[in-house]
């Protein structure tokens, strides 16, 4: 034979291999394709939904800010409008447009309506798109007593031109006429547009503004001017670049979005492990055919490329299907759930899918690449197997040497993972936490072969032929055993870690609820609104109710400490002297009492993390137009807000601001009082019974837990998919090994092993492997859960949780998984022994 005779190219070898696989095992290939498709679909849909929702947020903020070069923003309750006068007269400023921006409470409705009060003559230059629709009815708009609704608001509220909208101001209801509906293109989210004077009058904010939009003459160095302006503004009022204003919403939801993306990637990585294990098994099964190709002149490189191409081919098909499915799922989420995938923070109306070809191609490339990566190692092993040895047959690939070097790399990865888990967040994202999870996961997987051998070597002989044979088989075929385990260990350990994290969080949340809801009845203004409050007269009425033993009032306000960050919540509450530990879930307290003249403040963990305040430090808060100093007396846990919360004594707050209104109340009932009757009595004190939310603490608790569970529903769904993919891996492994061992089973049947004993042999192997996988997955999941609880959760959401292990749930899932693995093995075993034992023995002849 001519040594330089042409050999088939990698492309042709690839076609031969893939087509033969397709003929022989269409089911296996199809399931691998589906697994990749699922992972890609999840990752793509989560990305597309988030991109659409964020795009919508950004667009909406752009419309509100318009052409302004700088936004001067004050606290929600506003600042004196003299500041606007000063800015309007400043010769360095071309246009100053005053704005009163409020979230107005609507009686009987949970969500407030954003109201923007502006001067249409000035805003016309800065936000032409926003007020363009009003042009023809300017006089009516300036006449007061009415508002324009965006199309989304009109649709949500079911209102038309001429209808009336009820809004809550204090504890009373006011009525506004709908002057018209803006076109859907003007502003896509719910919004009410009012003349600024009418807004100030309606919402009792005479002389107050909370925003001034500035346009600067051409040629001004905007950033330079912004800095110089900032130094002249009163405390609590900030000069902000519009970009920062737009990015704030994006920043607030970033941690949740990143976590969701990571979760979706888990499914994709599990799919990659599935490709790895199925390709490895497939290479093992075809080792003689592959060796024959090598003997016939296919080079090592050609074979390796062809086998990687086989995995990439499957990945490409799966990725195309996944991208299509991802687009469809994203469209459905945007259409039916308004883009909300669980957190509630990304709720947008009418967001349209922005499926940029580049991002879709990126998902296609990711799916194809992870599948190719999954096929790389088995391809390399097959290409490096000496053909003569493989042709002789009966021998496993040489995993022994690989196992030793894998264990060394695995240990190194574990140590590195543990090390980088301790590093701080990057831009408030737990980048090193995610990297630590990946390293620990890969490191642990690489240790599996060595550990499997170690455990099986120590397994004693029982004298039971079936069991002992099963042990011997697993021990000598550690490569196969490891491959079977990898995908299920990956998915199960991640599931365990997530389950421990979510359970710990829920447990901590329940304890926290118990601490923050000690009273019998809770009363609060609708969440997130700026217009409803409990005036002093109403507070007095509530305190005088016959059923009330004690009432604690709280005033919750938003303050802006940093322009680039979301606002911080200030809670001024009636504190019991010396009993703060009973009123707040305190984590740490300052070693010494506050110095004279510096009242105490208790900050949440988020405030400490984001702003770096330490116990015993001085904290300046903008109150009543001046800076008031506080002493950081303690750190407490706040699961209601992750952007920072500060608790101060309400008496101090009233003294600094003169504001005696409250936004929340906790009512302790007298012994024997009927809570339901007391709730009715509380409602009877309101001008409108649905002006405020009144609930018994048990109902608040129940609803809070429901919201919690809903927020994590998608997590459970993604976990379930990952485990399903892992189980598919076990199923492939079981059926592939059963097929590969038909001759062995045939021989065992010849020498007198009963059919059920052969099936039992496979069941024992399946159970042994899955027990090992489950124990290993539990241990690895436990370690990963520490990273989730103490690093990723802490750095993403800025609150700590106490570790708690859901033993019972993990036990049930573990048993279910072992049972599923056993059933799969039995099913595969039945298929293998159903094959004529005689034919199986003769197959190799």
């Amino acid at each position, binding site marked *: 034979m001519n040594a330089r005779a042409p050999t088939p190219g990698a492309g042709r070898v690839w076609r031969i291999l893939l087509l033969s696989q397709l003929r022989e095992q269409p089911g296996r290939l199809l399931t691998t394709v589906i697994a990749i498709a699922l992972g890609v679909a999840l990752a793509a849909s989560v990305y597309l939904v988030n991109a659409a929702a964020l795009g919508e947020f950004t667009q909406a903020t752009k419309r509100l800010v318009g052409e302004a070069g700088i936004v001067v923003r004050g606290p929600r309750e506003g600042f004196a409008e003299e500041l606007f006068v000063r800015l309007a007269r400043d010769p360095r400023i071309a246009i100053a447009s005053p704005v009163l921006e409020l979230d107005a409470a609507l009686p009987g409705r949970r969500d407030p309506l954003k109201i923007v009060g502006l001067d249409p003559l000035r805003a016309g230059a800065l936000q032409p798109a926003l007020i363009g629709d009003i042009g023809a009815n300017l006089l009516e708009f300036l006449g007061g007593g009415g508002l324009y609704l965006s199309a989304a608001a009109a649709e949500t509220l079911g209102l038309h031109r001429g209808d009336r909208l009820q809004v809550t101001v204090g504890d009373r209801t006011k009525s506004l006429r709908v002057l018209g509906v803006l076109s859907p293109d003007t502003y896509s989210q719910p919004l009410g547009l009012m003349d600024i004077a009418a807004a100030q009058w309606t919402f009792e904010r005479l002389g107050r503004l909370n925003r001034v939009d500035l346009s600067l003459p051409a040629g001004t160095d905007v950033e330079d001017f912004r800095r110089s302006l900032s130094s002249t503004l009163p405390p609590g009022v900030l000069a902000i670049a519009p970009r920062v204003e737009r990015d704030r919403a994006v920043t607030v939801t970033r941690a949740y979005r990143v976590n969701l993306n990571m979760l979706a990637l888990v499914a994709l990585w599990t799919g990659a492990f599935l490709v790895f294990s199925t390709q490895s098994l497939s290479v093992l099964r075809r080792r003689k055919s592959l060796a024959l190709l090598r003997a016939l002149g296919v080079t090592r490189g050609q074979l390796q490329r062809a086998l990687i191409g086989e995995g990439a081919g499957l990945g490409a098909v799966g990725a195309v299907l996944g991208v299509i499915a991802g687009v469809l799922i994203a469209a459905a989420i945007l259409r039916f759930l308004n883009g909300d995938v669980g957190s509630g923070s990304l709720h947008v109306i009418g967001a349209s899918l922005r499926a940029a070809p580049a991002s879709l191609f990126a998902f296609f490339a990711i799916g194809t690449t992870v599948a190719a990566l999954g096929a790389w190692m088995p391809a390399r092993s097959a290409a490096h197997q000496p053909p003569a040895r493989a042709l002789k047959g009966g021998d*496993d690939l040489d995993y022994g040497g690989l196992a030793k070097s894998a264990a060394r790399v695995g240990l190194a990865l574990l140590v590195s993972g543990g090390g980088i888990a301790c590093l701080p967040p990057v831009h408030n994202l737990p980048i090193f936490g995610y990297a630590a999870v990946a390293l620990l996961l890969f490191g642990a997987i690489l240790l599996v072969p060595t550990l499997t051998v170690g455990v099986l070597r120590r397994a004693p002989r029982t004298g039971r032929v079936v069991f002992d044979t099963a042990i011997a088989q697993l021990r000598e075929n550690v490569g196969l055993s490891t491959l079977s385990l990898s995908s299920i260990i990956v998915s199960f350990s991640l599931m365990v870690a997530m389950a421990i994290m979510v359970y710990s969080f829920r447990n901590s949340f329940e304890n926290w609820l118990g601490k923050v809801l000690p009273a019998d009845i809770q009363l609060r203004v609708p969440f997130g609104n700026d217009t409803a409050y409990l005036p002093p007269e109403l507070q007095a009425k509530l305190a005088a109710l016959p059923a009330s033993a004690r009432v604690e009032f709280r005033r919750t306000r938003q303050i802006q400490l940093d322009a680039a960050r979301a606002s911080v919540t200030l809670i001024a509450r009636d504190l019991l002297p010396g009993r703060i530990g009973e009123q707040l879930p305190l984590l740490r307290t300052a070693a010494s009492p506050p110095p004279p003249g510096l009242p105490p403040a208790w900050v949440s963990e988020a405030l400490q993390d984001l702003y770096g305040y330490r116990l015993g430090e001085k904290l300046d808060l903008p109150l009543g137009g001046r800076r008031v100093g506080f002493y950081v007396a303690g750190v407490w846990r706040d699961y209601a807000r992750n952007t920072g919360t500060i608790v101060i004594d309400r008496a101090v707050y009233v003294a600094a601001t003169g504001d005696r209104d409250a936004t929340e109340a906790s009512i302790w009932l007298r012994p024997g009082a009927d809570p339901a009757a007391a709730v009715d009595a509380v409602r009877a004190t309101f001008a409108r019974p649905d002006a405020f939310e009144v609930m018994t603490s048990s109902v608040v608790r129940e609803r809070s837990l429901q919201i919690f569970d809903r927020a994590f529903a998608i997590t459970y769904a993604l976990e379930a998919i990952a485990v399903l993919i892992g189980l598919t891996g076990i199923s492939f492994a079981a059926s592939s090994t059963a097929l590969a061992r038909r001759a062995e089973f045939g021989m065992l*049947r010849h*020498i*007198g092993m009963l059919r059920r004993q052969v099936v039992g042999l496979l069941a024992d192997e399946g159970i042994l492997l899955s027990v090992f996988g489950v124990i290993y997955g539990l241990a690895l999941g436990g370690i990963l859960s520490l990273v989730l609880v103490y690093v990723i959760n802490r750095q993403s959401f800025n609150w700590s949780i106490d570790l708690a292990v859901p033993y019972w749930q993990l036990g049930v899932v573990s048993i279910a998984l072992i049972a599923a693995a056993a059933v799969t093995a039995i099913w595969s075993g039945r298929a293998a022994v159903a094959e004529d034992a005689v034919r199986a*023995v003769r197959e190799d*002849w």
Partner: protein
Amino acid sequence: MADLPVLRLERLAKRYRPDRPAIFEGLDLSLNPGEYLAIMGESGVGKSTLLNLLAGLDRPDSGSVVLEGQDLSALDDDATTLLRRRSIGFVFQAFHVLPYLTVEQNVGLPLELLGVGETERRRRAMEMLAAVGIGALATRLPRELSGGEVQRIAIGRALIHRPRLVLADEPTGNLDPHSAAQTLALLRDQVKANAGAGILITHSRAAAETADRILVLDGRGLTALGPRQ
């Protein structure tokens, strides 16, 4: 029992498909204890099919296979398997030893299936390994041995439980002439030493001549060829 034939075939017939002619029909055969028989025939004549019928691994279309006085067609799958476990030893052309068991464990496997205790099993396995000439390899895995040595494991495994019948299907098909000669002699000697009967299926005239008598299977049935011509 000693006088009864180990195996008796009566009017045995088999066809693969009802619309095809029979592979063979009307086969009669009787095999006595201690007798070692070779069956020869061309490829496709049905030698392996006959072997499978003898072992109860396949069912005849008519006629009967009587092993140690029991008609195999009257037994269900479990009972046939248990009878095979107890009374038959197999040697295959492709050896078929378990690659993950040691030489000693492979040879002792039939005893393990019969529930023999570990001590006794190991003792007998070592005896058998010594008898087939690979006593020094007891702790090795099959992949570390040559083809001839692996076939000795298979012979040891076929005989360790002293079966009444040993069925060997082309046992030297994968061996070189020297190993083949050694294996055939060993197989014959061990069948005789264990007081059982044996049937050797082979293409090879030389291999067949190690048997006490030779039958040729062809379209007409089983025909005696005569000993050592």
